């Protein structure tokens, strides 16, 4: 369980990014976080991941305060799937996935078990065939799947993903979302508990596709929180992004109304 209580954060004193957020994430959920650019979505994820200098007591994971948790322990509870990143070194796919096991075993090498876990994780995202290919030669969608495999290898229950579909083509976007849905239904690699995905997205239809719960965030505050079908409605979207219902109508009509939203 992740418990966020009275979470506020500011990079500089004048401009608070997050204002007094309170919510609880239970096991077995998919959490879609939506909000306009600059609303604090990514900052919220970074706060949960322990990247920010927070006050103690604002974010608890399974009862542990993220501020005081050692990185090694935190990595067993939470895994992070970053957006596209840019290391200049072109590691092999399997080596990238093995990084998810860095906290386990002896400090200078990976064990046979680590290798088995990494291969199994690659198998679950259907990329085992590419294990010995250079990571940077893969397509954007495949890279994102490799990072998901790395997060699986980490063995944590909570997956934090910052706009996982950014830069992917139309079909890859839905392939990735489908993989997330599958993994969420299958559960963790080693534990019986279910995987919990917490992801930010700019696409309301992706949230509807994934299902689960949605948090709408506006100017660092929680605008709405509830099941996706109840929250990601035409009214909710209009309120969240400050667009006129007629304009949303126009967008939806251009999509052929397949998302079932109408003002």
């Amino acid at each position, binding site marked *: 369980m992740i418990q966020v209580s009275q979470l506020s954060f500011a990079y500089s004193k004048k401009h608070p990014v997050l204002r007094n957020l309170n919510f609880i994430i239970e096991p077995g959920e998919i959490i879609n976080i939506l909000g306009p650019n600059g609303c604090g979505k990514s900052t919220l994820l970074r706060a949960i991941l322990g990247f920010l200098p927070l006050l103690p007591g604002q974010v608890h994971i399974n009862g542990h305060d993220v501020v005081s948790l050692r990185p090694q322990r935190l990595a067993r509870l939470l895994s992070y799937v970053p957006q596209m990143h840019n290391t200049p*070194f072109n590691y092999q796919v399997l080596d990238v996935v093995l990084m998810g096991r860095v906290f386990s075993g002896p400090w200078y090498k990976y064990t046979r078990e680590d290798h088995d876990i990494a291969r199994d994780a690659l198998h679950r995202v259907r990329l085992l065939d590419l294990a010995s290919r250079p990571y940077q030669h893969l397509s954007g969608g495949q890279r994102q799947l490799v990072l998901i495999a790395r997060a699986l290898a980490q063995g944590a229950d909570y997956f934090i993903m910052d706009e996982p579909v950014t830069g992917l083509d139309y079909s890859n976007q839905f392939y990735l979302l489908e993989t997330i849905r599958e993994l969420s239904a299958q559960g963790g690699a080693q534990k019986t508990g279910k995987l919990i995905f917490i992801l930010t997205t700019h696409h309301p239809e992706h949230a509807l596709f994934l299902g689960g719960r949605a948090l709408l965030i506006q100017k660092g505050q929680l605008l709405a929180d509830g099941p996706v079908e109840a929250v990601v409605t035409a009214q909710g979207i209009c309120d969240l992004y400050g667009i006129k219902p007629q304009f949303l109508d126009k967008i939806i009509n251009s999509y052929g109304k397949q998302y079932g939203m109408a003002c």
Partner: protein
Amino acid sequence: MIRHLEVALFAIFGAIMVSLLIGRYGFDFHDLMSLSKALLAGQELTMKQHEILFVLIKIRLPRIVAAMLVGAGLAVSGGAYQAMFLNPLVSPGILGVLSGASFGAALGIVFFRSMIMTQVLAFCMGCAAVGLAILLSTLVRRSSLLVMLLGGMISAALFGSLTSLLKFLADPNKELPELVYWLMGSFARVNEETLLWIGLPIVGLIIYLSVQGKVANVLSMGDEEALSLGVAVKRTRLQIILAATLLSALTVILTGIVQWVGLVIPHIMRFVVGPDNRVLLPASAIGGAVFMLGTDAVVRSVSTAELPIGVFTSLVALPLFILSLYVNRRNWK
């Protein structure tokens, strides 16, 4: 992996043998074999064999050991630096260690005129320059690696100009040539005592850095990713940077300033064994040792005068570098 190890051992052994045989005092492989036979059998040595033994142990062996330590040390610390700064263009001098060491040596030569003081000051100032770079980077709150590199540039520039000042002040007949010669790097000053008390920490640091590959890979993905993978990023990164800095500062005591090895050898080895630091770091150490032995062999056979090694490292490294770029040109499209 096994194949790599065999190749590496073969390369090192070959380079040592060649280095043992090259030099002004002439003897060949045959002499060497009969000498070792005589030694193993416990026979009385001939006059010639006594001479050979003396040359081997007192002159060539210390030099060979020094060359290997300096080459391996600079190359592995360069590889480690490149992983820590997520940048394959970084070399051990990037945080100012070499500029600081040059300044320290200049102080020692101009003001103290003593070998020991020159070495000690070179080491201390090398570390001080890196300390200044890191201090500057803490001026920026939650600073990035880029700020540390900038700090290094500032520190290197500062100590560089101070060195120039000392060059200007130095006596042009005595001190200046010595200083210039020192800055080019040379194995001429290597002796057994220095090697003994400096060799052990160098070996220790080479081994320490060579086995950091697992965590170096993760750190080369950037701070936040490494943190989320479970590495105590700040502490670990600083530890590795400090170990690499200390290592390059120690090599300076042995040979003075040797450029290029730390940048080029990890680069070339990356073409050979790939970017995985678990293999790359030890491979860089071995490659650096072999490269330095080879370069020293060239230097010793080109002329009977003692030529500065630092000049030749770039002359030998650059063609190798260009060759490895050419061989791997497909990867650079």
